[in-house]
């Protein structure tokens, strides 16, 4: 494949820097050779070592996960290559156990691909376990782990391989795989897993082949991105993820060229960690430069849509918060009238005073949240202002912003 841009990078989270933890993310982008097709595939990988204290070797676990995937990939690509139909096919499969509530488990099942994919995941898991045990043998754990020797090495693994005929993505644990189709559509090839949310994730140290999710397609995308939860958890959905990150990179690449963009992403990743919650951040990217000019307008439109959504969400919460503040103020006023009528020193007086003090505490918390939301709204508006939007018709960027916010408020009027 020609005119392809790839990138992989990780940055240590600002929280990790603050408390002396290493970067526990790993990322990779490169070519893998295999027997079949034209014999080469671009491979993207990211792995996120769990951040808690008991996973104290998770950075090594992440490194070993990347190694394991690279070792296992050539064989699976060879098998996929011989079995992939030539006509258009797109499949998205969740975890093997139906009880695990993966959203896309009802997608078409090709038993041959399913068994091949599960075999691949079994191979990755086995390789990873072997490498971990080897590392433990050379570097004994300071004390035995009741949850097994691999527990300190716990990590996630997300990968993708793109050949000239098809692409294949897989995931165990949190993080995200997202892409942009050649028509500008957002692609979410790997279905979700209800076990990966609210600070929880499936793990290489605890889960196996049946817990991987995957997707493949013979329709090559314009761009594909893998990222760890340091980024994906801070985006509302895949569309915001692709438009907000792939979009600006695509524009910068067309303007500056690949080498400059790689440096720019390197510089931006620590900023993302600072802005997005302090965790390690990793991105791996595959982009077809030839297809980008056709999708940039769609990505811009999605950015505006994401801004609508972000603004609406924050505004709605602000309205609710301000309503709660008003309710408490009313309650406090009413309570003061009641307290005046209660004889001092009785329990009723004590209870009324206690309720007022609690209301004041709640009020203070709500005001803090109100200030935070107002700051959030300012940030969103600033993002819109900074978004280098070239008006596609005779409308100015200022008009677009004004329309956007006006539309948001209209939506709010309807929904509230």
């Amino acid at each position, binding site marked *: 494949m020609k005119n392809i841009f790839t990138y992989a990078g990780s940055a240590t989270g600002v*929280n990790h820097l603050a408390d002396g933890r290493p970067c526990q993310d790993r990322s990779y982008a490169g070519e893998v050779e295999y027997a079949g097709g034209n014999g080469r595939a671009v491979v993207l990988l990211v792995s996120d070592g769990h951040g808690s204290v008991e996973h104290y070797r998770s950075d090594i676990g992440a490194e070993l996960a990347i190694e394991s995937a690279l070792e296992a990939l050539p064989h699976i690509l060879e098998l996929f290559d011989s079995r992939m139909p030539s006509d258009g096919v797109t499949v998205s499969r969740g975890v093997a156990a139906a009880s695990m509530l993966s959203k896309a488990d009802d997608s078409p099942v090709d038993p041959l691909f399913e068994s091949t994919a599960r075999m691949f995941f079994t191979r990755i898991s086995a390789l990873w376990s072997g490498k971990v045990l080897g590392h433990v043998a050379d570097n004994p754990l300071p004390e035995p782990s009741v949850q097994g020797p691999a527990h300190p090495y716990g990590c996630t693994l997300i990968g993708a391989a793109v050949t000239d005929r098809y692409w294949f993505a897989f995931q165990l644990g949190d993080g995200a795989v997202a892409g942009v189709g050649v028509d500008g559509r957002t692609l979410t090839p790997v279905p979700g897993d209800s076990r990966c949310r609210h*600070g929880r994730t499936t793990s290489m140290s605890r889960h196996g082949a049946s817990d991987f999710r995957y997707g493949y397609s013979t329709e090559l995308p314009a761009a594909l991105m893998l990222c760890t939860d340091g980024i994906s958890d801070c985006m*509302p959905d895949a569309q915001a993820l692709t438009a907000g990150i792939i979009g600006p990179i695509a524009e*910068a690449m067309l303007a500056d060229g690949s080498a400059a963009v790689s440096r720019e992403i390197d510089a931006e990743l620590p900023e993302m960690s600072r*802005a997005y*919650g302090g965790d390690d951040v990793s991105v791996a990217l595959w982009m077809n430069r030839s297809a980008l000019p056709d999708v940039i307008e769609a990505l811009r439109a999605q950015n505006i849509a994401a801004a609508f959504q972000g603004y609406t969400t924050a505004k709605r919460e602000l309205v609710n918060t301000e309503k709660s503040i008003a309710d408490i103020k009313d309650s406090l006023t009413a309570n003061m009238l009641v307290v005046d009528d209660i004889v001092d020193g009785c329990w009723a007086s004590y209870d009324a005073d*206690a309720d007022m003090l609690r209301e004041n505490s709640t009020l203070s918390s709500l005001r803090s949240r109100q200030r935070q939301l107002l700051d959030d709204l300012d940030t*969103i508006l600033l993002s819109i202002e900074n978004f280098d939007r070239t008006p596609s018709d005779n409308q100015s960027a200022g008009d677009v912003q004004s329309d956007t916010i006006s539309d948001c408020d209209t939506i709010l009027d309807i929904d509230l």
Partner: protein
Amino acid sequence: MPLNFFRPVAATRRHLNMFYLLDTSGSMNNAHCIQQLNSAMRDIVPILREVSSANRDHSDIYLSCISFGTEAKLLYRNPVLIDKFEWIDVRAEGLTNLGAAFMLLNEQMKSRKTFGHGDGNLRSAVILMTDGQPDSGWQEQLTELQSNPWFREAFKIAITVGPQAAHPEVQDVMWHFATPLDAGDDHLVIHVSDLARIGSVLRFVSSVVSRVGSQNYGSPTAATGQIADAIEGEFKDEGVVLIFDRAGNDRKPHY
């Protein structure tokens, strides 16, 4: 051109919601239990503030408190950010309407005021402290509560205090309440027979749960296990009985 990633949503810190269900029935007046509870709740505020400011994953801690005597009461109408939280003493009187407390908790766990739009919330923690036999009706409300997805994945810790609460029937209630559901393998039930230890147990449990809850764990079992290990390690002496169901062991409390 400078690369400027478009950030449609301003970054916000994650939320750890901690819910306290506190028995304020008349029997809590015995042996100054209610005073100890009030004192402990005051003491945990600076502890949780420290956890919130120092935690690794930038999590804000929000507190919700429900007292239950003859009726249950939401002490603070919205969850309160720990930095703004001020504990106001409660007093003890009346019966032990645990069912009403479960119902209020369920309502609060369904409210948008509690979890906003759901993104960025960590698993919640629910800490229940009681000294006696609950009134009838708790089972239906607990069954209802256990269908709430936020409750299902929350850390659930029951702390019972005093001789009445050692009764098998009370322990059965706590056992049901502390069923992990989607939160791992361990039933976290603690019985405090030495009433002078109520405050220290509540403080320690709050501290451990907030520290574990604000981290990113590979599995709920690991997180709950971490809490169990910490509590076991802290309270080895007499006066505090720990009842855990560690992975693979089918243990139920027997008194």
